[in-house]
């Protein structure tokens, strides 16, 4: 059953990533250079929608809180984020969108994946050094959510009810998606809103 779900949800994810332009480095470059925020609006709406459905579902008892999987917070998350952001802007791909792009026939995505496999191997080789440096040690409680989610095994950074906060933040993401302009930078020709 899990195998079937992996194929169905994975295929749907790849399909949608291609259709929204996320697997096309041109759309990533437009978003990151702030000249066309159409993809940013898509992503913000997606995070908001996912959040509202998940926390709403939890509050109604329809979604298993135990399916949440919260990653640890540590200084390396920020440093790794900086590295990823630089490489993301340079190549126009992140790990998932490169896989989709390669499936769609983009040859530069294959080059990205080859480099990525080497980069992941380099991390496997250098992991003990990062571990010893303390940069991987938990900060602010490690695996925490912003509020305290009822029934969850994860601690809350605050005592605010986490499901309610999740619903509100989800709504906030949706509002930002709507109010964000189509571009923040560049004067060029007007870009149609698709």
């Amino acid at each position: 059953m899990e195998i079937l779900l992996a194929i169905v949800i994975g295929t749907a994810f790849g399909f949608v990533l291609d259709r929204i332009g996320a697997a096309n480095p041109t759309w990533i470059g437009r978003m990151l250079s702030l000249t066309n925020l159409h993809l940013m609006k898509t992503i913000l709406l997606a995070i908001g929608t996912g959040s509202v459905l998940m926390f709403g579902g939890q509050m109604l008892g329809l979604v298993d809180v135990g399916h949440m999987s919260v990653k640890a917070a540590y200084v390396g998350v920020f440093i790794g984020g900086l590295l990823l952001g630089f490489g993301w802007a340079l190549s126009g791909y992140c790990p998932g969108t490169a896989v989709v792009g390669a499936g769609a026939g983009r040859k530069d995505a294959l080059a990205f994946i080859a480099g990525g496999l080497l980069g992941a191997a380099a991390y496997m080789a250098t992991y003990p050094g990062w571990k010893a440096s303390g940069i991987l040690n938990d900060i602010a409680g490690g695996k925490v959510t912003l509020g305290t989610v009822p029934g969850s095994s994860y601690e809350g950074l605050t005592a605010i009810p986490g499901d309610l906060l999740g619903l509100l933040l989800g709504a906030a993401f949706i509002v930002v998606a709507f109010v964000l302009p189509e571009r923040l930078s560049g004067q060029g020709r007007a870009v149609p809103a698709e």
Partner: protein
Amino acid sequence: MVLNWKIGGLLLGLVFFLAVALVKPIGVSTQFVILDGVAWNAVDSSVVTQTEEGYTSTNAYLDKSSGKYAKAVANPLNYSFLFVLAMALGGFASVMLRGGLERGERQMPQLWRTNFGGSTLTRYAVAFVGGFIVLYGARLAGGCTSGHMMSGMMQTALSGYIFAAGAFAAAIPTAMLLFRQEA
């Protein structure tokens, strides 16, 4: 052309919701490590070994969290690995249904061509270097755009917000410097 953001965002949000409702939040970058491990273990079978309690590895990273990654290397036909393979299938199906990808786009994206010319060697080299940096960074961070940014912020994970702050702090200035010409 791409889907209108209201439709695209709803569909993408629905996929993220279905994943967490039915199985677990979406993540991708770990599977690059798993594929490396599978290849490495195929060449040198002493990398991952089965024990009474589970799996262990001579590599400290594969061995962490009680050999969680070592186990996936030994059994690559698991949910997370097949999920990522299926993503390529989804990209292929989507492109075929919208009439295929033009030859120029198969070589390099338009925005790159407009700013840096049509050398495929340059483009592939930059994509390779970019891939190296992205996956090194993703593993240091413990996740990528899917796992940290999308799944993480959706679950109100503190780590997701820290990751997104780092990623955009580097990505936006880099892209603004690189792509002076719009396309």
